[in-house]
């Protein structure tokens, strides 16, 4: 029993910290454990959650996708424009995913087929996506977003915001794809040993392209969701998110070397960062001190989960 518990703690080193912070903040701030606060936390972090799942998939395969943050912006802007022009939310959602897919495919082809370094490639596409977002929007929020988008943002199902449900749906789908399909298995194995995957007959290129494509599509969905949570599409929406996304993924314990980690861990990582930020705000820690605490947490948290996972064997 105790061994099972300690095993799961080792697999999810973030979990006890998350629980501790949650309990701690609940004790020290009367406002932390209120529906209003929890709901706000869930809503505000749904975009980060979805994008982090994309980044997790790429990390698991041993890559990195720096462009995901500005793909959020580009797809939000384009979805906004499409919705403003057509009035159709559905078309907007499709447009967002299509934009994400295009950037994802671009990354995937350059990295998987041409063999470029993921870091530089996605750094370049990050710039391009950002440029696209700002050029198309002329730097300002897209006007004429249907009100139904904001209603969607306000919608709450069973006490949980609809955007969070959307995030959870993405989590569930990706969890399913990663743990229950051959594709997911291949992603993990490529991350573990790219050569061995090739020698085992896995189509490494195709899988790589598809993972970046999925990451792009998730960026697109995140962009679309951002319109719901903000009520408007703005070109700068993704700019501030990259570090939070990477932070959440590594904090969850998914390493950049690939083959190790999980979507569940990333969900915990996102949870931990959101609880931390919300809690620190509530107890009145200045935002710059929050930055310091966040940095320390990302550093030592990542170190700790790395340590625990190597000690496991």
């Amino acid at each position, binding site marked *: 029993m105790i061994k099972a518990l300690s095993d799961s703690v080792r697999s999810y080193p973030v979990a006890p910290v998350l629980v501790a912070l949650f309990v701690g903040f609940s004790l020290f701030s009367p406002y932390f454990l209120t529906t209003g606060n929890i709901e706000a936390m869930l809503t505000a972090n749904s975009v980060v959650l979805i994008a982090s799942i994309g980044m997790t998939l790429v990390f698991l395969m041993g890559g990195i996708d720096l462009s995901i943050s500005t793909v959020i912006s580009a797809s939000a802007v384009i979805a906004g424009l499409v919705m403003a022009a057509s009035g159709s939310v559905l078309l907007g959602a499709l447009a967002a995913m299509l934009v994400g897919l295009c950037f994802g495919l671009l990354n995937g082809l350059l990295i998987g087929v041409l063999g470029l370094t993921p870091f530089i490639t996605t750094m370049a596409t990050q710039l391009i996506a950002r440029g696209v977002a700002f050029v198309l929007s002329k730097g300002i929020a897209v006007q004429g977003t249907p009100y139904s988008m904001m209603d969607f943002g306000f919608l709450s199902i069973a006490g949980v915001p609809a955007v969070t449900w959307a995030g959870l749906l993405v989590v569930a789908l990706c969890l*399913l794809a990663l743990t229950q399909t051959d594709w997911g298995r291949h992603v*993990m194995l490529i991350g573990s040993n790219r050569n061995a995957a090739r020698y085992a007959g896995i189509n490494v290129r195709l899988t790589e392209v598809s993972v970046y494509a999925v990451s792009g599509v998730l960026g697109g969905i995140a962009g679309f969701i951002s319109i719901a949570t903000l009520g408007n599409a703005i070109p700068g929406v993704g700019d501030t998110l990259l570090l939070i996304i990477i932070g959440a993924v590594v904090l969850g314990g998914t390493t950049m070397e690939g083959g190790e980690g999980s979507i569940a861990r990333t969900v915990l990582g996102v949870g931990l960062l959101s609880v931390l930020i919300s809690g620190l705000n509530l107890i009145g820690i200045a935002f710059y001190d929050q930055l310091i605490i966040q940095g320390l947490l990302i550093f030592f948290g990542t170190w700790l989960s790395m340590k625990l996972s190597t000690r496991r*064997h």
Partner: protein
Amino acid sequence: MNGNTTTPLLSFRGLKKSFSGKTVVDGISFDLYPGQVVGLVGENGAGKSTTKNMLCGLLEPTGGQILVDGHVVERNEGHAHGISAVHQELSLFGSLTVAENMCIGSMPGSRLRIDWREMERIVREQLDFLGMDIDPHATVNSLGAGMQQIVEIGKALLHADKVLILDEPTTSLTAVEREKLFLILDKLRDRGIAIVFISHFLEEIYRVCDSYIVLRDGQQVASGQLADVTQRQLEALMVGRSFENSPDTIRPVTGSCEALRVENLGSADFRDISFAVQRGEIVGIAGLMGAGRTEVAEAIFGLRPATGDVHVHGKVVPERSVAGMKRLGVCYLPEDRRVNGLFLNRAVRENLSVAAISRFIRRGLFKLGFSGERQATQAVVDSAGIAIPHINVRVDALSGGNQQKVLLSRWMATEPEVLVLDEPTKGVDIGAKFDIHTRIRELAEHGAAVVVVSSDLPELLQLSHRILVMRKGRLVGEFSREEFDSVRIISLAASVDDKVA
């Protein structure tokens, strides 16, 4: 030849090395005099690398004595005692220049300034000494393998110039490069440097060395002056009598139904490779490291580009790929299991099922899930005799033998009709080796065609119906079981000229 010096530079008395109680090398005793070149020969696994590492001070012997200039020393300090080694895997820096590589250990000049002139002088002097015209400013990446080898020798000699140990220095060299290397070794000998030369190529041993030491199964079985033995005697000493006659417990091939045919396969690493394998037949491919065996195997599976055709069951394979071959019932067990075979940080379960996932699972609703994988892989583990605590343990926690069994079982699970096994028993213990051999025989008896690539000749002699010999990217000989002759096979694989065949 040994000059007038009477004290040996270096002497070893009964060196012994054990790893966790298991003795790997025992009873190494010899003297090294200035200007002497000793050839250290032996089969794969005879203990050459362990001996080498003790000689150059990388490993501390568990027993025996080391004498430097006639005095017993506590520890072999390597460089401090003037001993340097050139290992098979060069420790060079590709993007640095020749001069920088050679001097990286002790650069001339002050902390704030490298004295490039001095460095160039040292390097030029060294290169002149070696008789090589290499540009000290060229980057090592831009040099051929032979030049790199010489740079490494120059680097080694800069640090320690009494004893030089060379481990298989010629495997990646062209004939010209090799000849240059030998001239250099001659020169070094003339200047009183003692050399230990480790090689498979007996011609080279005769060309370079004046004395020899033969290792077999970790024991020093013979030593003396090369002038006193013929090459054939030396080969016999290396192989030992026990493997002279292969066991005849092998069932002959029945019928003749061709399973795999390779026609005129060619690439940058090999030429004109053609052979065929019958169902139920085990064909061994012998050859030295670097002979191009692995490259051929990989080319068959489309893992590296090559011209020529591969036929499976009489039909030509249009586009070679691992996945396509797998569909045709052909599988490949790669040579380096850590680099190309196993997913080290993933569970044994996943490592086992990767090549034939559909045979391990019952796909549920919407073709999702891996239900039944655990039980099915557990069954494989049990039947293959893989010793693991549980099915989800990471594969890097396993011993070499068990790892190899996992890899083999992965491919067995595809129920292959043609198997290409590259070094299937490399680095595994005797028990696992026996198990693996048994499985290979069983497969052949059930009608599979098996190609075994191995550097372990006794293994091939035991297992195969037929042995093909490769040298320098070409097939140079073929032996049917009746003709098996280990000495002839070795000399064919290791000869410099084609004439030997």
